[in-house]
């Protein structure tokens, strides 16, 4: 669309598009999906002869652009590889959280009564357990790895969905078209599918995009603690954990991974804000 009124000029139109967030999210999207195309070296291959090389601009070799780690692995390629893990975990985790949270929130809001009470108590109980503790317990039960960490992310985030969707459902329930549908004989199943869920789409999308940033941080924290992705697979959090010891000597080990996390989360948050402003400005308090 975007017809530019003549009195306005081109710049404000560009300003309206989410260019900056898109730019910030480019790396994780490209690396995460097309990873191997971007490797300059095999991220797993160890090359002790070239270990602890600084980045190119700080005196290192051109082929190891961001330097190497203590085992001689290329930092840049590891970041590319790590993007995939972060992307998969964040997106899948948020999706799972969404499915669970939206379903329970919708049921709680629509039926009310004891169903609402029970679901909300479960939400309250879970929200009082710190995220880290939760993830430790789950990892202890299921072992480490990609699947575990995805489940952890899902379990941490579903409660926020549930609360928000419950509120949305409550307000949708009051709108006259719901009463009219009931008066036309609409059953519960049809009500959910045809009337309630389509009206939850914009809120759900906003919540999901705002969660993505936090999901990446949670994933990085969990991996940092050693509970998530295990070597030789790599993830940004793991890179930061491994590189922690070398902070003063080989700062590039943890620094670039941390930087990658920062710009990705920033991009996700900004994108989430933009989507929220377009779809549903009422949710500004998120």
């Amino acid at each position, binding site marked *: 669309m975007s017809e530019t009124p003549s009195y306005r000029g081109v710049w404000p139109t560009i300003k309206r598009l989410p260019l900056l967030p898109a730019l910030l999210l480019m790396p994780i999207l490209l690396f995460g999906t097309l990873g191997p195309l971007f490797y300059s070296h095999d991220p797993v291959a160890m090359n002790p002869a070239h270990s602890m090389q600084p980045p190119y601009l700080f005196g290192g070799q051109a082929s190891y652009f961001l330097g190497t780690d203590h085992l001689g692995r290329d930092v840049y390629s590891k970041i590319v590889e790590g993007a995939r893990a972060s992307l998969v975990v964040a997106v899948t985790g948020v999706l799972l959280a969404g499915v669970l949270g939206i379903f329970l929130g919708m049921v709680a809001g629509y039926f009310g009564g004891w169903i609402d009470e029970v679901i909300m108590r479960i939400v309250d109980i879970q929200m009082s357990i710190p995220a880290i503790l939760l993830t430790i317990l789950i990892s202890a039960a299921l072992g480490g790895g990609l699947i575990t960490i995805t489940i952890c992310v899902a379990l941490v985030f579903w409660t926020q969905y549930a609360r928000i969707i419950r509120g949305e459902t409550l307000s949708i329930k009051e*709108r*006259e*078209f719901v*009463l*009219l*549908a*009931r*008066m*036309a*004989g*609409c*059953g519960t199943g*049809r009500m959910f599918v*045809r*009337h309630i869920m*389509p*009206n939850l*789409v914009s809120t759900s999308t906003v919540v999901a995009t705002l969660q993505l940033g936090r999901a990446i941080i949670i994933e990085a924290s969990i991996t940092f603690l050693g509970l998530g992705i295990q070597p030789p697979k790599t993830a940004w959090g793991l890179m930061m954990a491994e590189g922690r010891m070398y902070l003063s000597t080989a700062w590039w080990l943890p620094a670039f991974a941390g930087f990658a996390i920062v710009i990705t989360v920033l991009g996700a948050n900004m994108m989430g804000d933009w989507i929220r402003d377009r779809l549903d400005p009422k949710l500004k308090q998120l």
Partner: protein
Amino acid sequence: MEPLLDIQGLTKHFFIPANGFLRRGYSTLKAVDGVSFSVAKGTCFGIAGESGSGKTTINKLILLAEKPTAGKILFESKDITAFNRQEIIWYRTRVQPVFQDASSSLDPNMRIIDIVSEPLDIQQKEIPRRAILLKAQEILRLVGIGPESLRKYPHELSGGQKQRVAIARAIILDPALVILDEPVSALDVSIRAQILNLLADIQEQRHLTYLVIAHDLAMLRQITTHVAVMYLGKIMETGETEQVFDHPSHPYTKGLLQAVPRSKPGQRKERPALYGEIPDPLNPPMGCRFGPRCEHRIQGCDELDPPLMRVAEGHFVACARFPEGGTP
């Protein structure tokens, strides 16, 4: 001939927790307190009242959105408050509402044709989809929505068009009774006439009966055949519209009619039509509810709540000054 809708002694009390931090105890909000009236087939019955009159609650009670505390609602001589699930489903095809806010009445994610065909989809599953869509299209044409709008979404329509769609949806199941709650007050003044004329036309064509709830007295005069004036949960006066408007007997009715601004300048009244405020519904006055504001108060008005008494054929007033069939 028995009336289509017969309300007998309808009462609805709400229990409101008392004020104060601990909220101990309850106050009783007598939203509707012993209301009786009947609506004959083919007529248009209006319920007039200001805020706190109980007219919105009556709407909810008739639509079975609330359960009455006492009293009966007879539809085609059957007591709807005693209906089981099957009967409620039947009832809902016979009585349909049209609400004030058309934007809220239409699902923003559905196309117009789907909104209007939904009741048929649900109720008459055996009819093929094509036939349903054709019927919906026909009804929409009847209310003035052409084929170019069928696939639009509600936000693409104007206020008047949305209300037409709401009306189309209400009549597609061929109900006997349509309950209209402030059908035109949210619309622009120049559009109201279109919708009111449309309602009159379809009533005639499809042999409908209307129950209209509104505060706009001029509008009620135009479209209703009978009217009931409510105040704080009770009917103060009821009868044929012409009768009640031309010969108002209850002091409240008189005050209400006097308070409506007229489009004829030079009729500036000297004093306000009515003094005082509408009392707190949680604490209605003793005896006649209108007593404290009434200029014609007599002995006993603050003790006895007068019942509806006949003052003329089909014309009833709840006022102590009108003993049965008499004039004061």
